[in-house]
């Protein structure tokens, strides 16, 4: 752990060092979330604050029950915080909106719609005309490599293909913020690697602020501009680790020493949390 002290910026330092990023896109301001259960109150998130810069790729890691998904739901507007607020471009959010797209672990494709109709779903709600809708959908279906499956139904697709459709669907409505809740968690290792690379490419092209939840530390280091480590009971931010590996990140990045150092450092932080959570 000695070597990690230089690289890992703990929460306190992070706030001092970069309390006001140049273009603060998302400000998570003292969010607290308490759930009422039959066994009393459960604090899912405890005074969580985080500022995300424009076009930043944030990865959140932590043991289950650390409130990662709760935080994502609050960012999406699907859940309201007990106290505190989330501001996007300085405006606080109330309820879900197509400005904040979500990719779910279980794909959440509409099974009665074809791939194209799924991707067009959000565009239709925005009352975008048929021709434009079609060309936007086509662009994103092509970008995820599913051109030949545009008229297929979700049941005909593999898990990886379904998640590609979900990503295309989220991108198609052109959200300012993309929230991904363990999107590759249910996929096999090979497909996951492939989709990670594709997602990075898309991120580099489209320049969108991403908030990505994962269990996989290696995935977090590969994708992130900064990795947020959370701890459980109550859920809070334990550390924020900047990942200054250069882009484009490739298979070679994975082999490099800086990559593996970061991975090991973060993994030891996360592992400590797993141990604590087990107690």
């Amino acid at each position, binding site marked *: 752990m000695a070597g990690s002290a230089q690289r890992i910026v703990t929460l306190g330092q992070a706030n001092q060092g970069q309390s006001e990023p140049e273009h603060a896109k998302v400000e998570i301001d003292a969010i607290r979330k308490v759930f009422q259960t039959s066994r009393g109150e459960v604090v899912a998130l405890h005074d969580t604050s985080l500022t995300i810069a424009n076009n930043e790729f944030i990865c959140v890691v932590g043991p289950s029950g650390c409130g990662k998904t709760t935080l994502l739901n609050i960012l999406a507007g699907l859940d309201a915080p007990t106290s505190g607020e989330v501001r996007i471009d300085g405006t606080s959010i109330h309820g879900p909106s197509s400005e904040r797209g979500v990719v*779910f672990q279980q794909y959440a494709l*509409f099974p009665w719609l074809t791939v194209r109709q799924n991707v067009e779903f959000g565009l239709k709600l925005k009352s975008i005309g048929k021709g434009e809708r079609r060309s936007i959908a086509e662009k994103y279906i092509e970008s995820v490599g599913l051109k030949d499956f545009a008229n297929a139904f979700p*049941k005909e697709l593999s898990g990886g293909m379904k998640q590609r459709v979900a990503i295309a669907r989220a991108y198609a409505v052109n959200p300012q913020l993309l929230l991904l809740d363990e999107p590759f968690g249910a996929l096999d290792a090979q497909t996951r690697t492939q989709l990670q690379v594709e997602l990075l490419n898309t991120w580099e092209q489209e320049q969108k602020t991403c908030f990505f939840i994962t269990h996989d530390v290696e995935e977090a280091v590969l994708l992130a501009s900064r990795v947020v480590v959370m701890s459980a009971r109550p859920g809070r931010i334990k550390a924020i680790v900047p990942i200054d590996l250069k882009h484009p990140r490739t298979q070679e990045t994975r082999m490099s020493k800086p990559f593996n150092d970061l991975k090991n450092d973060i993994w030891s932080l996360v592992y400590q949390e797993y141990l604590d959570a087990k107690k």
Partner: protein
Amino acid sequence: MDNKPATRVGQMIDRIDGKVFLVVSFLLGLLVWQLVSMTKAGAVFAGPVDTFDAFIQEAKSGRLLEHIYASLFRVLGGFALALVIAIPVAFLMGWYRVCRMLVEPWIQFLRTIPPIAYIPLVIVAQGVGESAKITVIFVASFLVMVVSIYQGVRNVDVTLIKASRVLGAKDRDIFFHVIIPASFPFILVALRLGLSAALTTLIAAELTGAQVGLGQMIQEASLYFRMEIVILGIVMIGIIGFLLDKLLLFLERRLAGWQEVRSV
């Protein structure tokens, strides 16, 4: 099914088309029927030949068609009315908690009462005409359908609703573009259950008094001990139910082929 039989006979059986079995099964059924009618039970249980004769006779006179028409009119009338009302009621129950809390206990309670129990009440209220029969059939199939469509609405995957919200869907959009299509397979199941309830109730309604109809035909024939006509009536009801069910299955395959698991 997948274990290949080792014997040559087994292999031969495996190669036979499913349709052949359907024919064989049908012929075997006829044979059993014929054998039963040749025993002592034959006094009551008219054989296939007698029944077929009765069919020709009744069909030629036009009476059979009249009965079938009357019965079908009642079944489809009551059933269609029930469907048109069950869909909005079920959606309201699934969507609004207040509606669910107020309506569901009554539906669950009434559902347990066999329609035969309230047929006399309906007849006293509405007489023995068409409207009484349609009312009874309506109530029976409505209760079955509303419960099953409501289950469908309640079972809509919450993630799909979330996914549509973050794509910009409002309540109205969610209702029309998520809830309705997602519960469509349940509506089809409800149609089949409702139709079967409608047929069951039809006969009960017609047995208690009707000028015409398959139930009435059975009732009258039994008074004169025309057992071949009784059996003819029973078989006709079976065929109608079977054909309508097949029609709905066909619709399900055409309209809800997108389902991951098909319940055929």
